[in-house]
């Protein structure tokens, strides 16, 4: 299990929540993480259809952005970061 913090456009699918949870018991790839996030978002809110947004997003923790080759171990917290537009 991993808690996933949501930002930007993902927020609109989860009301006042800031996180969703994805279920996994072993290390998984960033690609697999994204698949699970897409499923969890759809389960949380059937209106969620923006799989492209998930694909375009990065996975990160407080310290860095995961590269596509990194593995995510269960039990922690990560964040999904949609394309950015600060400034």
């Amino acid at each position, binding site marked *: 299990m991993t808690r996933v*913090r949501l*930002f*930007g*456009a993902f*927020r*609109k699918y989860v009301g006042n929540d800031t996180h969703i949870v994805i279920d996994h018991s072993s290390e998984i790839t*960033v690609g697999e993480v994204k698949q699970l996030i897409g499923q969890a978002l759809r389960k949380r809110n059937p209106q969620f259809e923006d799989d492209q947004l998930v694909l*375009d*997003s*990065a*996975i*990160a*923790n*407080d*310290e*860095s*952005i*995961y*590269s*596509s*080759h990194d593995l995510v171990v269960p039990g922690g917290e990560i*964040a999904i*970061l*949609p*394309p*950015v*537009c*600060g*400034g």
Partner: protein
Amino acid sequence: MSEYGEVFCCIAEGPLDPEAIFQFTQQMQHGAQNYFFGAVREVNLGKTVMAVSYDAYAPLGEKILREIAREAQDHWGKDLRIYVQHRVGQLAVGEVSVGIGVSSLHRDESYMASRFIIEQIKIRAPIWKKEHYEDGETEWLKGHALCQHRHKEKTQEIKHSCAAHL
């Protein structure tokens, strides 16, 4: 100079205080200071904007701002003194959302480093904005996908492979 100049990076709710930014940035030995302030615009993409809500992943964001500042120092002078602040939360039209201060020995570096920092913020900082329009609608703006290539100690490479707008 062999030591890095001081860097202050912050992502927070409170308003920017230009006086504090000037105070931090200016340095006796330096002949140039450049400041950039970005503010919420009234019209974006043809729609009248009432306010903008900024969302940010602050811990990672501040770390990335420091990385960007360090890259500016490595490129334009270790001794650069750099201040970067970005607001989060809802801002009215005209309010300043981002402030950058750079002081350097000569003017060229202050302009170049400041410009580099704002361009990098726009493509690398985990910050998002939602516009509030006069008809009550809101919209999260489209943005730049974050680079997911491994780039520890490989600044130059990343700049090319991820098309950072240098």
